[in-house]
Protein backbone atom coordinates (compact mmCIF):
# COMPACT_ATOMS: atom_id res chain seq x y z
CA UNK A 1 0.00 0.00 0.00
CA UNK A 2 1.37 3.41 -0.93
CA UNK A 3 1.98 6.14 1.58
CA UNK A 4 -0.09 9.20 0.74
CA UNK A 5 0.90 11.45 3.61
CA UNK A 6 4.14 11.37 5.53
CA UNK A 7 4.78 13.60 8.51
CA UNK A 8 7.93 13.59 10.58
CA UNK A 9 8.79 15.64 13.65
CA UNK A 10 6.20 18.32 12.96
CA UNK A 11 6.32 21.28 15.33
CA UNK A 12 4.31 24.50 15.18
CA UNK A 13 4.19 27.27 17.75
CA UNK A 14 2.10 30.42 18.00
CA UNK A 15 4.16 32.84 20.04
CA UNK A 16 4.88 31.05 23.29
CA UNK A 17 2.20 28.42 22.76
CA UNK A 18 3.32 25.10 21.33
CA UNK A 19 0.38 23.96 19.23
CA UNK A 20 1.94 20.80 17.82
CA UNK A 21 5.15 19.06 18.80
CA UNK A 22 7.02 15.98 17.59
CA UNK A 23 4.09 14.79 15.53
CA UNK A 24 4.93 11.95 13.14
CA UNK A 25 2.58 9.64 11.26
CA UNK A 26 1.71 8.23 7.88
CA UNK A 27 -1.53 7.97 5.98
CA UNK A 28 -1.82 5.03 3.59
CA UNK A 29 -3.66 4.88 0.33
CA UNK A 30 -7.36 4.13 0.57
CA UNK A 31 -7.75 4.45 4.32
CA UNK A 32 -9.80 6.77 6.48
CA UNK A 33 -7.26 8.21 8.88
CA UNK A 34 -8.56 10.22 11.80
CA UNK A 35 -6.96 12.63 14.20
CA UNK A 36 -8.96 12.75 17.36
CA UNK A 37 -8.58 14.75 20.53
CA UNK A 38 -10.10 17.57 22.56
CA UNK A 39 -10.35 21.14 21.24
CA UNK A 40 -6.94 22.75 21.25
CA UNK A 41 -5.10 19.44 20.96
CA UNK A 42 -3.49 20.57 17.69
CA UNK A 43 -5.62 18.67 15.17
CA UNK A 44 -6.53 21.63 13.01
CA UNK A 45 -3.01 23.05 13.14
CA UNK A 46 -1.65 19.71 11.94
CA UNK A 47 -4.14 19.37 9.11
CA UNK A 48 -3.61 22.99 8.04
CA UNK A 49 0.16 22.40 7.89
CA UNK A 50 -0.53 19.44 5.61
CA UNK A 51 -2.79 21.58 3.45
CA UNK A 52 -0.10 24.22 3.09
CA UNK A 53 -2.20 26.85 4.87
CA UNK A 54 0.29 27.09 7.75
CA UNK A 55 4.05 26.98 7.76
CA UNK A 56 5.52 24.50 10.25
CA UNK A 57 8.44 25.60 12.42
CA UNK A 58 10.12 22.24 12.10
CA UNK A 59 9.60 18.83 10.58
CA UNK A 60 9.08 17.40 7.13
CA UNK A 61 5.76 16.91 5.43
CA UNK A 62 5.05 15.13 2.17
CA UNK A 63 1.53 15.01 0.82
CA UNK A 64 1.17 12.99 -2.41
CA UNK A 65 4.94 13.31 -2.53
CA UNK A 66 4.71 17.12 -2.54
CA UNK A 67 6.02 19.71 -0.12
CA UNK A 68 2.91 21.74 0.84
CA UNK A 69 4.93 24.94 1.28
CA UNK A 70 6.86 24.86 -1.98
CA UNK A 71 4.40 22.98 -4.17
CA UNK A 72 1.14 24.30 -2.74
CA UNK A 73 -0.34 25.10 -6.12
CA UNK A 74 0.01 21.53 -7.40
CA UNK A 75 -1.18 20.19 -4.06
CA UNK A 76 -4.34 22.30 -4.20
CA UNK A 77 -5.06 21.03 -7.69
CA UNK A 78 -4.91 17.42 -6.50
CA UNK A 79 -6.47 17.42 -3.05
CA UNK A 80 -9.90 18.31 -1.75
CA UNK A 81 -10.11 20.37 1.41
CA UNK A 82 -12.99 21.03 3.75
CA UNK A 83 -12.16 23.60 6.41
CA UNK A 84 -13.44 23.93 9.92
CA UNK A 85 -14.35 27.58 9.47
CA UNK A 86 -15.28 28.71 6.05
CA UNK A 87 -18.27 30.01 4.18
CA UNK A 88 -19.62 30.98 0.84
CA UNK A 89 -21.31 34.29 0.03
CA UNK A 90 -24.84 34.22 1.50
CA UNK A 91 -26.64 34.76 -1.78
CA UNK A 92 -24.59 32.29 -3.83
CA UNK A 93 -26.73 29.37 -4.97
CA UNK A 94 -25.66 25.75 -4.61
CA UNK A 95 -25.21 25.16 -8.34
CA UNK A 96 -23.37 28.45 -8.77
CA UNK A 97 -20.86 27.53 -6.08
CA UNK A 98 -20.16 24.18 -7.74
CA UNK A 99 -19.97 25.71 -11.20
CA UNK A 100 -17.59 28.46 -10.01
CA UNK A 101 -15.29 26.18 -8.04
CA UNK A 102 -15.20 23.68 -10.90
CA UNK A 103 -13.63 26.39 -13.07
CA UNK A 104 -10.60 26.52 -10.73
CA UNK A 105 -9.44 22.98 -11.51
CA UNK A 106 -7.78 21.77 -14.69
CA UNK A 107 -9.62 18.43 -14.57
CA UNK A 108 -12.71 19.08 -12.54
CA UNK A 109 -15.29 16.41 -11.85
CA UNK A 110 -18.75 16.83 -13.33
CA UNK A 111 -20.49 18.93 -10.69
CA UNK A 112 -23.95 17.84 -11.82
CA UNK A 113 -23.06 14.27 -10.87
CA UNK A 114 -21.75 15.41 -7.50
CA UNK A 115 -24.97 17.32 -6.92
CA UNK A 116 -26.90 14.08 -7.37
CA UNK A 117 -24.46 11.92 -5.40
CA UNK A 118 -24.65 14.20 -2.40
CA UNK A 119 -28.41 14.50 -2.53
CA UNK A 120 -28.35 18.22 -3.20
CA UNK A 121 -30.35 18.22 -6.42
CA UNK A 122 -33.44 19.66 -4.76
CA UNK A 123 -31.31 22.40 -3.23
CA UNK A 124 -29.73 23.30 -6.55
CA UNK A 125 -31.15 26.83 -6.58
CA UNK A 126 -31.06 27.47 -2.83
CA UNK A 127 -28.81 30.29 -1.62
CA UNK A 128 -26.01 29.22 0.72
CA UNK A 129 -27.48 31.08 3.73
CA UNK A 130 -30.75 29.12 3.46
CA UNK A 131 -29.08 25.69 3.75
CA UNK A 132 -29.17 23.66 6.95
CA UNK A 133 -25.93 22.75 8.71
CA UNK A 134 -25.95 19.26 7.20
CA UNK A 135 -26.64 20.59 3.70
CA UNK A 136 -23.80 23.11 3.99
CA UNK A 137 -21.43 20.31 4.98
CA UNK A 138 -22.63 18.20 2.04
CA UNK A 139 -21.97 21.13 -0.27
CA UNK A 140 -18.48 21.52 1.21
CA UNK A 141 -17.83 17.81 0.63
CA UNK A 142 -18.99 18.27 -2.95
CA UNK A 143 -16.59 21.22 -3.36
CA UNK A 144 -13.79 19.11 -1.87
CA UNK A 145 -14.52 16.35 -4.41
CA UNK A 146 -14.50 18.72 -7.41
CA UNK A 147 -10.77 18.38 -8.18
CA UNK A 148 -11.18 14.58 -8.51
CA UNK A 149 -8.74 14.34 -5.63
CA UNK A 150 -6.71 11.35 -4.55
CA UNK A 151 -6.82 12.67 -1.00
CA UNK A 152 -9.57 14.53 0.84
CA UNK A 153 -9.05 16.53 4.05
CA UNK A 154 -12.09 16.89 6.30
CA UNK A 155 -11.68 19.11 9.35
CA UNK A 156 -14.35 18.70 12.06
CA UNK A 157 -16.88 17.72 9.45
CA UNK A 158 -19.77 16.85 11.75
CA UNK A 159 -19.36 19.49 14.47
CA UNK A 160 -22.67 21.24 15.00
CA UNK A 161 -24.73 18.59 13.22
CA UNK A 162 -27.58 16.68 14.85
CA UNK A 163 -27.11 12.91 15.30
CA UNK A 164 -29.13 12.06 12.20
CA UNK A 165 -27.21 14.40 9.94
CA UNK A 166 -23.99 13.08 11.48
CA UNK A 167 -24.92 9.48 10.61
CA UNK A 168 -25.77 10.52 7.06
CA UNK A 169 -22.43 12.33 6.76
CA UNK A 170 -20.55 9.23 7.95
CA UNK A 171 -22.26 7.20 5.23
CA UNK A 172 -21.17 9.79 2.69
CA UNK A 173 -17.56 9.67 3.85
CA UNK A 174 -17.58 5.87 3.57
CA UNK A 175 -19.04 6.17 0.09
CA UNK A 176 -16.26 8.57 -0.93
CA UNK A 177 -13.64 6.14 0.39
CA UNK A 178 -15.23 3.24 -1.49
CA UNK A 179 -14.47 5.19 -4.68
CA UNK A 180 -10.79 4.68 -3.90
CA UNK A 181 -10.05 8.01 -2.28
CA UNK A 182 -7.94 8.44 0.83
CA UNK A 183 -9.47 10.46 3.62
CA UNK A 184 -7.78 12.31 6.43
CA UNK A 185 -10.15 13.78 8.98
CA UNK A 186 -10.14 15.39 12.39
CA UNK A 187 -12.84 15.09 14.99
CA UNK A 188 -13.33 15.58 18.68
CA UNK A 189 -16.04 12.90 18.77
CA UNK A 190 -14.45 9.66 19.94
CA UNK A 191 -17.46 7.74 18.72
CA UNK A 192 -17.05 9.19 15.25
CA UNK A 193 -13.38 8.21 15.15
CA UNK A 194 -14.18 4.72 16.37
CA UNK A 195 -16.96 4.06 13.91
CA UNK A 196 -15.58 5.79 10.85
CA UNK A 197 -11.79 5.55 10.86
CA UNK A 198 -9.55 2.68 9.87
CA UNK A 199 -6.76 4.14 11.96
CA UNK A 200 -6.68 6.97 14.44
CA UNK A 201 -4.05 9.15 16.02
CA UNK A 202 -5.09 10.43 19.43
CA UNK A 203 -3.74 13.92 20.07
CA UNK A 204 -3.44 15.67 23.39
CA UNK A 205 -1.61 18.93 24.08
CA UNK A 206 -0.02 18.88 20.63
CA UNK A 207 1.40 15.39 20.81
CA UNK A 208 0.28 12.02 19.53
CA UNK A 209 -0.43 9.88 22.59
CA UNK A 210 -1.66 6.80 20.72
CA UNK A 211 -1.86 5.62 17.13
CA UNK A 212 -3.43 2.51 15.62
CA UNK A 213 -6.70 0.93 14.59
CA UNK A 214 -9.53 1.71 17.04
CA UNK A 215 -9.81 -2.04 17.81
CA UNK A 216 -6.12 -2.39 18.58
CA UNK A 217 -6.14 0.70 20.79
CA UNK A 218 -9.12 -0.59 22.74
CA UNK A 219 -7.66 -4.08 23.04
CA UNK A 220 -4.37 -2.55 24.15
CA UNK A 221 -6.18 -1.04 27.10
CA UNK A 222 -6.61 -4.49 28.57
CA UNK A 223 -9.91 -3.16 29.77
CA UNK A 224 -12.48 -5.78 30.58
CA UNK A 225 -15.75 -6.54 28.92
CA UNK A 226 -18.70 -5.97 31.21
CA UNK A 227 -22.11 -7.57 31.55
CA UNK A 228 -24.66 -5.52 33.46
CA UNK A 229 -28.12 -6.64 34.64
CA UNK A 230 -30.72 -5.93 37.32
CA UNK A 231 -32.23 -8.30 39.86
CA UNK A 232 -35.35 -8.18 42.02
CA UNK A 233 -33.98 -10.77 44.41
CA UNK A 234 -30.52 -10.89 45.93
CA UNK A 235 -27.72 -12.65 44.19
CA UNK A 236 -27.15 -16.14 45.64
CA UNK A 237 -23.83 -16.66 47.37
CA UNK A 238 -21.28 -18.49 45.28
CA UNK A 239 -22.40 -16.86 42.04
CA UNK A 240 -19.01 -15.28 41.50
CA UNK A 241 -17.18 -18.54 42.15
CA UNK A 242 -19.33 -20.32 39.59
CA UNK A 243 -17.96 -18.02 36.87
CA UNK A 244 -14.52 -18.47 35.34
CA UNK A 245 -12.16 -15.48 35.35
CA UNK A 246 -14.72 -12.84 36.30
CA UNK A 247 -15.41 -10.44 39.12
CA UNK A 248 -18.87 -9.43 40.37
CA UNK A 249 -19.79 -6.05 41.73
CA UNK A 250 -23.24 -5.44 43.26
CA UNK A 251 -24.65 -1.88 43.30
CA UNK A 252 -28.13 -2.10 44.87
CA UNK A 253 -30.28 -4.11 42.47
CA UNK A 254 -27.76 -3.61 39.67
CA UNK A 255 -25.07 -6.24 39.13
CA UNK A 256 -21.90 -5.64 37.09
CA UNK A 257 -19.81 -8.61 36.01
CA UNK A 258 -16.28 -7.81 34.85
CA UNK A 259 -14.70 -10.34 32.54
CA UNK A 260 -10.94 -10.69 32.77
CA UNK A 261 -8.41 -11.26 29.98
CA UNK A 262 -7.88 -14.66 28.46
CA UNK A 263 -11.45 -15.94 28.62
CA UNK A 264 -12.54 -18.70 26.26
CA UNK A 265 -16.34 -18.50 26.37
CA UNK A 266 -17.94 -15.09 25.81
CA UNK A 267 -18.78 -13.58 29.20
CA UNK A 268 -22.37 -12.86 28.28
CA UNK A 269 -23.25 -16.47 27.41
CA UNK A 270 -21.69 -17.72 30.60
CA UNK A 271 -23.59 -15.23 32.75
CA UNK A 272 -26.92 -15.88 31.01
CA UNK A 273 -26.62 -19.67 31.23
CA UNK A 274 -25.69 -19.48 34.89
CA UNK A 275 -28.63 -17.18 35.71
CA UNK A 276 -31.17 -19.29 33.80
CA UNK A 277 -29.62 -22.52 35.11
CA UNK A 278 -30.11 -21.35 38.68
CA UNK A 279 -33.56 -19.99 37.89
CA UNK A 280 -32.68 -16.43 38.94
CA UNK A 281 -35.07 -13.88 37.32
CA UNK A 282 -33.15 -10.95 35.79
CA UNK A 283 -33.92 -7.97 33.56
CA UNK A 284 -32.23 -5.21 31.53
CA UNK A 285 -29.21 -7.31 30.70
CA UNK A 286 -26.67 -5.69 28.40
CA UNK A 287 -22.99 -5.92 27.61
CA UNK A 288 -20.65 -2.94 27.72
CA UNK A 289 -17.53 -2.77 25.63
CA UNK A 290 -14.69 -0.38 26.31
CA UNK A 291 -14.53 2.43 23.74
CA UNK A 292 -11.97 4.88 22.43
CA UNK A 293 -13.35 7.21 25.08
CA UNK A 294 -11.94 4.81 27.70
CA UNK A 295 -8.64 4.74 25.83
CA UNK A 296 -8.41 8.53 25.98
CA UNK A 297 -9.39 8.50 29.65
CA UNK A 298 -6.73 5.97 30.57
CA UNK A 299 -4.03 7.78 28.56
CA UNK A 300 -4.70 11.30 29.79
CA UNK A 301 -6.63 10.80 32.99
CA UNK A 302 -9.27 13.14 31.61
CA UNK A 303 -12.56 12.75 29.86
CA UNK A 304 -12.90 14.36 26.46
CA UNK A 305 -15.44 17.17 26.45
CA UNK A 306 -17.35 18.70 23.58
Amino acid at each position, binding site marked *: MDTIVQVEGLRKTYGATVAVDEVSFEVREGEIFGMVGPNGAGKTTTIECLEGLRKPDRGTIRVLGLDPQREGQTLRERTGMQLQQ*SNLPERMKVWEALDLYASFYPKAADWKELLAQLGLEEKRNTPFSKLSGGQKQRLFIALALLPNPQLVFLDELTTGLDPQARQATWDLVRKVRSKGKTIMLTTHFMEEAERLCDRVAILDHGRIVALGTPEALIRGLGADERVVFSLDSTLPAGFEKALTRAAVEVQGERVVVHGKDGRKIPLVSEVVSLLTGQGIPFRDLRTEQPTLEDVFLSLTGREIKD
Partner: protein
Amino acid sequence: MKSLLKMTWMEAKLFLREPVGAFFTLVFPLMMLFLFGSIYGNEPTPMFGGHGTIDISIPAYTAMIIATTGLMAITITMATYRENGILRRLRTTPVSPLVVLAAQVIVVFAMTSLGMLLLIVAGKLVYHVRFEGNAFSVLIGFVLSSLSFFGLGFILAGLMPTARTAQVVGMVLLYPMLFLSGAGFPRELLPDAIKKVSAFLPLTYVVNLLRGLWIGETWSQHTTDAIVLAALLVVGVLISIKTFRWE
Protein backbone atom coordinates in the same frame (compact mmCIF):
# COMPACT_ATOMS: atom_id res chain seq x y z
CA MET B 1 -8.95 32.91 -17.64
CA LYS B 2 -11.99 30.66 -17.32
CA SER B 3 -11.99 31.20 -13.55
CA LEU B 4 -11.76 34.98 -13.98
CA LEU B 5 -14.77 34.98 -16.31
CA LYS B 6 -16.82 32.74 -14.03
CA MET B 7 -15.83 34.64 -10.92
CA THR B 8 -16.63 38.00 -12.54
CA TRP B 9 -20.03 36.81 -13.72
CA MET B 10 -20.75 35.37 -10.26
CA GLU B 11 -19.72 38.58 -8.50
CA ALA B 12 -21.91 40.60 -10.87
CA LYS B 13 -24.92 38.48 -9.95
CA LEU B 14 -24.11 38.77 -6.25
CA PHE B 15 -23.79 42.55 -6.58
CA LEU B 16 -27.25 42.85 -8.10
CA ARG B 17 -28.73 40.49 -5.49
CA GLU B 18 -27.63 42.84 -2.71
CA PRO B 19 -30.58 45.26 -2.82
CA VAL B 20 -29.01 48.11 -0.81
CA GLY B 21 -25.83 48.26 -2.87
CA ALA B 22 -27.66 48.02 -6.18
CA PHE B 23 -30.09 50.73 -5.05
CA PHE B 24 -27.42 53.28 -4.14
CA THR B 25 -25.41 52.58 -7.29
CA LEU B 26 -28.15 52.42 -9.89
CA VAL B 27 -31.43 53.82 -8.57
CA PHE B 28 -30.66 56.52 -5.99
CA PRO B 29 -28.61 58.75 -8.36
CA LEU B 30 -31.50 58.67 -10.82
CA MET B 31 -33.91 59.66 -8.06
CA MET B 32 -31.65 62.62 -7.21
CA LEU B 33 -31.52 63.58 -10.87
CA PHE B 34 -35.30 63.62 -11.20
CA LEU B 35 -35.76 65.36 -7.85
CA PHE B 36 -33.43 68.27 -8.62
CA GLY B 37 -34.45 68.24 -12.26
CA SER B 38 -38.09 68.74 -11.28
CA ILE B 39 -37.15 71.60 -8.93
CA TYR B 40 -34.61 73.51 -11.04
CA GLY B 41 -35.06 72.20 -14.58
CA ASN B 42 -32.03 72.44 -16.85
CA GLU B 43 -32.06 76.07 -17.96
CA PRO B 44 -28.58 77.64 -18.27
CA THR B 45 -27.83 79.83 -15.23
CA PRO B 46 -24.98 82.29 -14.59
CA MET B 47 -24.28 80.55 -11.24
CA PHE B 48 -23.04 77.50 -13.13
CA GLY B 49 -21.20 79.49 -15.79
CA GLY B 50 -24.01 79.27 -18.25
CA HIS B 51 -24.71 75.58 -17.72
CA GLY B 52 -27.91 74.04 -16.43
CA THR B 53 -28.34 72.30 -13.06
CA ILE B 54 -28.64 68.90 -14.70
CA ASP B 55 -25.66 69.54 -16.99
CA ILE B 56 -23.39 69.89 -14.01
CA SER B 57 -25.23 67.34 -11.88
CA ILE B 58 -24.48 64.36 -14.11
CA PRO B 59 -20.70 64.44 -13.55
CA ALA B 60 -21.30 65.28 -9.87
CA TYR B 61 -23.66 62.34 -9.35
CA THR B 62 -21.19 60.15 -11.21
CA ALA B 63 -18.66 61.17 -8.54
CA MET B 64 -21.26 60.22 -5.93
CA ILE B 65 -21.61 56.74 -7.45
CA ILE B 66 -17.83 56.33 -7.55
CA ALA B 67 -17.57 57.24 -3.87
CA THR B 68 -20.38 54.85 -2.94
CA THR B 69 -19.05 51.86 -4.84
CA GLY B 70 -15.47 52.51 -3.73
CA LEU B 71 -16.14 53.12 -0.06
CA MET B 72 -19.13 50.84 0.43
CA ALA B 73 -19.30 48.05 -2.16
CA ILE B 74 -15.58 47.23 -2.28
CA THR B 75 -15.01 47.72 1.44
CA ILE B 76 -17.97 45.69 2.64
CA THR B 77 -17.50 42.86 0.16
CA MET B 78 -13.80 42.41 0.79
CA ALA B 79 -14.04 42.76 4.57
CA THR B 80 -17.00 40.37 4.77
CA TYR B 81 -15.35 37.83 2.49
CA ARG B 82 -12.34 37.80 4.74
CA GLU B 83 -14.24 37.76 8.02
CA ASN B 84 -16.68 35.01 7.01
CA GLY B 85 -14.01 32.68 5.72
CA ILE B 86 -15.06 33.03 2.08
CA LEU B 87 -11.49 33.94 1.14
CA ARG B 88 -10.27 31.07 3.32
CA ARG B 89 -12.34 28.64 1.31
CA LEU B 90 -11.00 30.09 -1.94
CA ARG B 91 -7.48 29.72 -0.64
CA THR B 92 -7.82 25.91 -0.58
CA THR B 93 -8.23 25.97 -4.37
CA PRO B 94 -5.59 26.71 -7.00
CA VAL B 95 -7.22 30.05 -7.84
CA SER B 96 -4.92 33.09 -7.59
CA PRO B 97 -5.73 35.98 -5.22
CA LEU B 98 -5.31 38.27 -8.24
CA VAL B 99 -8.34 36.63 -9.86
CA VAL B 100 -10.39 37.34 -6.74
CA LEU B 101 -9.32 41.00 -6.69
CA ALA B 102 -9.62 41.48 -10.43
CA ALA B 103 -13.16 40.07 -10.52
CA GLN B 104 -14.14 42.45 -7.75
CA VAL B 105 -12.65 45.49 -9.52
CA ILE B 106 -14.17 44.57 -12.87
CA VAL B 107 -17.65 44.08 -11.45
CA VAL B 108 -17.68 47.21 -9.32
CA PHE B 109 -16.28 49.24 -12.21
CA ALA B 110 -18.95 47.84 -14.54
CA MET B 111 -21.69 48.70 -12.04
CA THR B 112 -20.30 52.20 -11.54
CA SER B 113 -20.26 52.67 -15.33
CA LEU B 114 -23.79 51.37 -15.57
CA GLY B 115 -24.85 53.90 -12.93
CA MET B 116 -23.28 56.72 -14.93
CA LEU B 117 -24.79 55.43 -18.17
CA LEU B 118 -28.29 55.46 -16.66
CA LEU B 119 -27.74 59.07 -15.55
CA ILE B 120 -26.63 60.09 -19.04
CA VAL B 121 -29.51 58.35 -20.75
CA ALA B 122 -32.09 59.81 -18.36
CA GLY B 123 -30.47 63.26 -18.61
CA LYS B 124 -30.53 63.14 -22.39
CA LEU B 125 -34.08 61.88 -22.70
CA VAL B 126 -35.73 63.94 -19.99
CA TYR B 127 -33.60 67.10 -19.66
CA HIS B 128 -31.80 67.32 -23.04
CA VAL B 129 -28.49 67.45 -21.25
CA ARG B 130 -25.68 69.34 -23.04
CA PHE B 131 -22.29 67.71 -23.37
CA GLU B 132 -19.42 69.95 -24.46
CA GLY B 133 -16.46 67.83 -23.48
CA ASN B 134 -14.38 65.24 -25.20
CA ALA B 135 -15.91 61.80 -24.60
CA PHE B 136 -12.50 60.08 -24.48
CA SER B 137 -11.18 62.59 -21.92
CA VAL B 138 -14.24 62.08 -19.74
CA LEU B 139 -13.80 58.32 -19.98
CA ILE B 140 -10.16 58.52 -18.88
CA GLY B 141 -11.12 60.84 -16.02
CA PHE B 142 -13.86 58.44 -15.00
CA VAL B 143 -11.52 55.43 -15.01
CA LEU B 144 -8.86 57.28 -13.01
CA SER B 145 -11.41 58.52 -10.45
CA SER B 146 -13.03 55.09 -10.08
CA LEU B 147 -9.77 53.20 -9.62
CA SER B 148 -8.51 55.74 -7.06
CA PHE B 149 -11.63 55.32 -4.98
CA PHE B 150 -11.58 51.54 -5.33
CA GLY B 151 -8.05 51.72 -3.95
CA LEU B 152 -9.42 53.62 -0.98
CA GLY B 153 -11.99 50.86 -0.48
CA PHE B 154 -9.31 48.15 -0.53
CA ILE B 155 -7.24 50.15 1.98
CA LEU B 156 -10.18 50.30 4.38
CA ALA B 157 -10.97 46.62 3.93
CA GLY B 158 -7.33 45.77 4.54
CA LEU B 159 -6.78 47.98 7.58
CA MET B 160 -10.04 47.55 9.49
CA PRO B 161 -10.12 44.61 11.90
CA THR B 162 -13.72 43.55 11.25
CA ALA B 163 -16.31 43.85 8.50
CA ARG B 164 -18.52 45.86 10.81
CA THR B 165 -15.85 48.52 11.53
CA ALA B 166 -14.95 48.67 7.85
CA GLN B 167 -18.57 49.37 7.03
CA VAL B 168 -18.97 52.00 9.74
CA VAL B 169 -15.73 53.79 8.87
CA GLY B 170 -16.67 53.66 5.18
CA MET B 171 -20.00 55.31 5.96
CA VAL B 172 -18.47 57.92 8.23
CA LEU B 173 -16.11 58.91 5.43
CA LEU B 174 -18.69 58.69 2.68
CA TYR B 175 -21.65 60.74 3.93
CA PRO B 176 -20.00 64.03 4.92
CA MET B 177 -17.90 63.78 1.80
CA LEU B 178 -20.99 63.47 -0.42
CA PHE B 179 -22.32 66.78 0.91
CA LEU B 180 -19.08 68.74 1.26
CA SER B 181 -17.35 67.83 -1.99
CA GLY B 182 -20.03 69.04 -4.36
CA ALA B 183 -21.07 65.53 -5.35
CA GLY B 184 -24.50 65.46 -3.66
CA PHE B 185 -25.34 69.03 -4.60
CA PRO B 186 -23.43 71.85 -6.32
CA ARG B 187 -20.55 73.33 -4.36
CA GLU B 188 -21.70 76.79 -5.46
CA LEU B 189 -24.49 76.45 -2.88
CA LEU B 190 -22.06 75.87 0.00
CA PRO B 191 -20.83 78.69 2.29
CA ASP B 192 -17.16 79.73 1.89
CA ALA B 193 -16.03 78.23 5.20
CA ILE B 194 -17.20 74.80 4.16
CA LYS B 195 -15.63 75.14 0.73
CA LYS B 196 -12.27 75.34 2.51
CA VAL B 197 -12.89 72.00 4.21
CA SER B 198 -13.68 70.38 0.91
CA ALA B 199 -10.07 70.83 -0.25
CA PHE B 200 -9.14 68.00 2.11
CA LEU B 201 -11.65 65.55 0.71
CA PRO B 202 -10.50 63.25 -2.10
CA LEU B 203 -13.97 63.26 -3.62
CA THR B 204 -13.68 67.01 -4.28
CA TYR B 205 -10.96 66.26 -6.83
CA VAL B 206 -13.17 63.73 -8.57
CA VAL B 207 -16.02 66.25 -8.79
CA ASN B 208 -13.69 69.00 -10.07
CA LEU B 209 -12.13 66.77 -12.68
CA LEU B 210 -15.33 65.19 -13.99
CA ARG B 211 -17.32 68.43 -14.01
CA GLY B 212 -14.50 70.25 -15.79
CA LEU B 213 -13.96 67.57 -18.42
CA TRP B 214 -17.71 67.27 -18.94
CA ILE B 215 -18.10 70.96 -19.87
CA GLY B 216 -15.08 70.90 -22.18
CA GLU B 217 -12.20 72.00 -19.96
CA THR B 218 -8.86 70.41 -20.63
CA TRP B 219 -6.58 68.18 -18.54
CA SER B 220 -4.06 71.03 -18.25
CA GLN B 221 -6.70 72.99 -16.33
CA HIS B 222 -7.02 70.05 -13.92
CA THR B 223 -3.46 68.91 -13.26
CA THR B 224 -3.89 69.17 -9.46
CA ASP B 225 -6.97 66.93 -9.56
CA ALA B 226 -5.20 64.43 -11.80
CA ILE B 227 -2.08 64.36 -9.60
CA VAL B 228 -4.06 63.94 -6.37
CA LEU B 229 -6.12 61.10 -7.82
CA ALA B 230 -3.13 59.37 -9.42
CA ALA B 231 -1.25 59.58 -6.12
CA LEU B 232 -4.26 58.16 -4.30
CA LEU B 233 -4.37 55.31 -6.78
CA VAL B 234 -0.69 54.45 -6.32
CA VAL B 235 -0.97 54.55 -2.53
CA GLY B 236 -4.15 52.47 -2.73
CA VAL B 237 -2.56 49.75 -4.82
CA LEU B 238 0.55 49.62 -2.63
CA ILE B 239 -1.35 49.49 0.64
CA SER B 240 -3.88 46.97 -0.61
CA ILE B 241 -1.11 44.63 -1.77
CA LYS B 242 0.62 45.05 1.56
CA THR B 243 -2.48 44.54 3.70
CA PHE B 244 -4.20 41.83 1.66
CA ARG B 245 -4.75 38.77 3.79
CA TRP B 246 -6.78 35.65 3.22
CA GLU B 247 -8.02 35.57 6.80
